[in-house]
């Protein structure tokens, strides 16, 4: 009994410590967003003078900077936004389609060369994609894909990490479902579309968020492909607002906030599917 009491006391202390630590990590995760938002409300000159601060000053704070996004360089910010969105939707849609197809095929069928193909997927996942940029760049020039959105998407059409994830996820699906589908007269492709895709929804949710993240954040390859200013994506465009001759803070901060908002909203809606989907299809070695 006595040791039990001590244990309980110890547990309470540990619990308080753990919670405090988690709050600390949460503050670390959130502080940059607070800086971003507070600064986006202030005139750029204020930033030059005092740097980033969390101080709220009702006299000078307003949403004027946000409306300034519409007029900055003839509203180029919204062109960047559109580019980023188009690329994100294309890359995610196509990637999910092919990634699930291949991952499912690798998990559910026995065939010659299966292990070789899966090994190739693993090898490709461990290659730094950056080293393939130069020949890819020459290839894009030759097939006239420079300065097009599709050119940006090409290296991500069949994402190896998605294949890997969908394979892991499919391994947990009972094969009997396939047999049942066959008995009902479904073709193999019908089984995939009508039976498996609905089961794979958590996996699709997790991969949608990961793919949107990758695409929204991608810098190097889009920077090589997209040359005209109106086709730039947000990361490329935001980079151009910082120059050695001075930074356009008035645009930088509200632009940063607006770039964060949509993806966080998607996440908040899908986060339950996301976390369960991601953990269910875990890396099982």
């Amino acid at each position: 009994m006595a040791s039990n009491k001590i244990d309980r006391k110890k547990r309470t202390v540990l619990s308080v410590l753990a919670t405090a630590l988690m709050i600390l990590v949460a503050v670390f995760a959130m502080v940059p967003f607070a800086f971003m938002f507070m600064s986006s409300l202030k005139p750029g000159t204020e930033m030059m003078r005092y740097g980033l601060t969390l101080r709220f000053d009702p006299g000078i704070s307003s949403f004027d900077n946000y409306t300034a996004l519409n007029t900055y360089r003839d509203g180029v910010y919204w062109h960047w936004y559109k580019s980023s969105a188009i690329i994100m939707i294309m890359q995610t849609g196509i990637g999910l389609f092919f990634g699930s197809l291949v991952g499912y095929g690798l998990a559910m069928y026995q065939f010659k060369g299966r292990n070789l193909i899966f090994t190739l997927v693993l090898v490709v996942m461990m290659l730094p994609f950056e080293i393939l940029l130069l020949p890819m760049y020459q290839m894009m020039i030759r097939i006239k894909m420079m300065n097009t959105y599709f050119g940006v998407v090409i290296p991500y059409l069949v994402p190896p990490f998605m294949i890997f994830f969908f394979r892991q996820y499919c391994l947990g699906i009972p094969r009997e479902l396939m047999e049942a589908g066959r008995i009902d007269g479904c073709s193999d492709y019908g089984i995939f579309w009508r039976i498996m895709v609905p089961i794979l929804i958590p996996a699709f949710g997790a991969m949608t968020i990961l793919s949107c993240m990758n695409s929204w954040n991608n810098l190097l390859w889009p920077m090589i492909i997209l040359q005209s200013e109106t086709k730039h994506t947000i990361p490329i465009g935001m980079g151009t607002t910082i120059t050695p001759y001075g930074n356009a803070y008035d645009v930088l901060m509200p632009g940063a906030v607006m770039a964060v908002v949509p993806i966080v909203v998607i996440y908040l809606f899908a986060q339950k599917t996301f976390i369960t989907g991601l953990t269910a299809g875990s890396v099982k070695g």
Partner: protein
Amino acid sequence: MQNRSAGKTVKRRGIRSLSDPKVVPYVFVAPFIVFFLFVYMYPLIMTVIMSFQQIDGPNHHQFIGLKNYQKLNTRDFQMALQTSGRYALWDVIVLTIVPLLIACILHSGLAKGSGFFKSLFFIPSLTSIIVAGIVFRLAFGTLETATMNRLMTAMGFQPVKWLSYAGPGNFVLILLTLWRWNGVNIVYYLSGLQSIPTDYYEAAQIDGASALQKFFHVTLPCIRPVLIYVITITVLGGFSMFTESVALWQQNNAGGVGRTIVGYMYMVGFKKNNLGLASAVGLTLLVLVVAVNLVQLVLMGFFRKEE
């Protein structure tokens, strides 16, 4: 694959043969095979060939032997190697350990509101590094009025020119990386922790194991596959880092502070149009990543047969 191409000439037989049980799996994996050949195999071979060439314009390729590799012996490239190497080392140390500890605390249920924290910690991963990097760049600005330097003076230290030197610059890079990737690695670890059967811990409890002993003798061995996965992708990400460095320094960083191997490759290949030399840089990166990962995988016992 053979059946497929045959199917194209005779259309009716083609349709039938696409649903042939022997062909079906290959139809499923065909996208990857095509993708692999065009997006990985071909460019990889081309990179190797180009690294031995002098390239002036699309149709002027000339073999020059090992000259591109000899040209790598410059101060700029050595600095890029050092920057990436230093970053990769700290990246692996910090981003395997910190998220693991946080994931263990979240999994233990000791902290109140673990579910809320799980969702919250992931949010930084959703942002663009360039966008978030702007905040870090300004907070760690050179001026004495920059946020971090004010904090330093308030605590009685000298202000630091954070981004002007390799050491402090690397610190800010790692901080930015930790902020941005922490949540992703936590999710990976949580998935591993959830797959450990609870009776393992109960058995350890009965044997009188302390919390630390449980961590080292139950938790760590059980999540070894996840650990290996996280370390492998962190090594890869560490050596091929580019975006974080652009976020803090742009591309015109004075004296090459913060320029990584990929940054150097980008500068040589796309700004100075020396595709041959850039390919040699790329292959050096490849060899580096593969070598470090092989050593790491052997040390972690990845190739060891399961007992």
